[in-house]
């Protein structure tokens, strides 16, 4: 066995996993606060990445201006989706709400295809091109710097939820809506904010992932990998999303490198199936007790 190769592959996988963790975090924020499983998260990522393409490529802005603008656009989209389409579904069965997000995903794919066409596109390169070496192991610079940017946002998020007023409101709403209401927390605003923050994380990850792997209207399929991440980690666990994100990213890349690209999805879904059988609520998820 070639340990250097394994190390390089693992490193690339872990860096990719860092981005998965970021997307998973976005997913978990939305789920924790609003109990909505967001199947459209891959498409929100895609939309933000196309916005970046339009700003940086079409309008020739500096990538460092385009990146925040695209991420902002993605978060506004998340907020609008919540206001217009998710709010009316409050109190409906979870099947219905999930189907609404699937419908939103389809609409977004159509809109993107209509504006930017169906062909795959390359994002203008904006990350440094100098190869990165850790010890002897080579790591593609796009992946390395993408990971660093993603990790920075992740740390900001964790601190925000721990210490800021908004973060506390969000956690309070997640643990008990009625109590949060009676303490004077504006629960509606928290719902909206959760979607904005969740989409923000997803949008940044979307631009970074698209910068390494290219962009097409099928980009949203990455949402499936993220689904595996959050189920394995536990839908309502931030720690779970981080650990599972890194692990699934690593597994996917290693399986792809050693067994071939067609094994990427089955490998991660096999882990998912095992987890569902032995720990149905994920590694760190809360086991809900049901009463009649």
């Amino acid at each position, binding site marked *: 066995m070639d340990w250097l190769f394994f190390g390089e592959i693992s490193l690339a996988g872990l860096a990719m996993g860092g981005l998965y963790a970021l997307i998973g975090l976005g997913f978990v924020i939305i789920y924790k606060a609003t109990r909505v499983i967001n199947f459209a998260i891959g498409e929100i990522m895609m939309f933000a990445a196309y916005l970046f393409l339009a700003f940086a490529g079409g309008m020739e802005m500096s990538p460092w201006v385009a990146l925040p603008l695209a991420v902002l656009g993605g978060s506004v989209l998340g907020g609008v989706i919540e206001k217009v389409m998710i709010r009316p*579904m409050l109190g409906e069965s979870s099947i219905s709400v999930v189907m609404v997000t*699937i419908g*939103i995903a*389809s609409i977004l794919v159509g809109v993107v295809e209509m504006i930017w066409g169906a062909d795959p596109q390359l994002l203008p390169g904006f990350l440094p091109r100098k190869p990165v070496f850790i010890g002897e192991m080579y790591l593609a610079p796009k992946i390395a710097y993408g990971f660093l940017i993603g990790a920075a946002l992740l740390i900001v998020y964790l601190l925000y939820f721990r210490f800021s007023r908004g973060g506390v409101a969000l956690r309070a709403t997640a643990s008990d809506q009625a109590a949060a209401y009676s303490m004077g927390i504006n629960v509606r605003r928290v719902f909206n904010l959760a979607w904005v923050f969740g989409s923000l994380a997803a949008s940044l990850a979307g631009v970074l992932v698209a910068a390494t792997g290219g962009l097409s209207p099928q980009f949203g399929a990455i949402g499936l990998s993220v689904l595996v991440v959050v189920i394995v980690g536990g839908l309502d666990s931030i720690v779970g999303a981080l650990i599972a994100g890194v692990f699934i990213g690593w597994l996917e890349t290693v399986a792809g490198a050693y067994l071939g690209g067609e094994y990427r999805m*089955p490998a991660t879904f096999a882990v998912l199936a095992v987890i569902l059988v032995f720990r149905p609520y994920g590694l760190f998820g809360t086991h809900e007790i049901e009463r009649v």
Partner: protein
Amino acid sequence: MRIGDAKQSYEADEAILTSSTQKIWFALFLLALLLFPFMADAYLLYLGCLVGIAVISTTGLNILTGFTGLISLGQAGFMGVGGYTVAWLSANTGLPFPVTLLLAGLLAAAVGILVGLPSLRVKGLYLAIATLAASVFLHFIFAEWESVTGGMGGLSLEPAHLFGLTFQSDFGMYFIIVPLAVVMVLAARNVFRTRIGRAFIAIRDRDISAEILGINLLHYKLMSFALSSFYAGVAGGLFAYFFRVVTPESFPLSMSIFYLAAVIVGGMGNLLGGILGAAFMTLIPEILKLLTTALTPFYPNAPIFMSPMLEIIFGALIVGFLIFEPHGLAEIWHRIRRFFSLWPFKN
């Protein structure tokens, strides 16, 4: 509710068609189905067959999702099992189509039971993800088990045959697909007049209460999975006979979502809704195609916009129906019926 409609016996109360008006309309509908292929041109016939296949599969998914409350993203995978079974059997054994279709349904049902096994431990969305995992594995098997499935190239089939008759044209296939669809929908209707069907509905409404009432949850959930995937398997087998080729890409994940959408747009937990939803969702792309052809002389770009437009309409239909008409087309149908039966008085 009609006036003067007192039921005198349980049979009358349980009957599928309760009034003579209903019986007449139903007979007329069957007659129309029978005469349709003699009047319709090739294109309409092709659409009729597609709708028939979609009706069978949607009815199956409706049993699972609409009546038992178990959401499944594996419908396309189960259809694939049926399609590949038929393709393999007709290539290697030369059995006639009723046998291959039955075996396709049974094999799909067996796979369905296997996929349904986690359903006692995990519920709701976790179950949806488990079925999603199943469809990923099935797709992988279709693509990689080359000695049986032919890999990415897939398998092609001989036309369906029985007693020396071959059903090569759409005209012939219509007479396999549509009668089968009618029988299978009626069979589903009958299921919901028995203990089994009522148990499904009880599980949907509150599974814990159902268990307290003495319904064996695992048993009935698995039965629902088996029934639903039997329907999917038969639909997949018909799909294979109709297109005469199956590849892993014939049964993509988007197809599972299409059938879920058909159930929702039609009306969850309503067999009539399933039929309406299947027909409606199958015909939408065709109507859009007609519109595009009509618009092309004025807007030469129209064909480019058709496929994204279809995605947008598809998504908007799902979102719109769930927000504004959660009971689906079936509810609209009932409203129209009420209007006519109460006319000239307002509801």
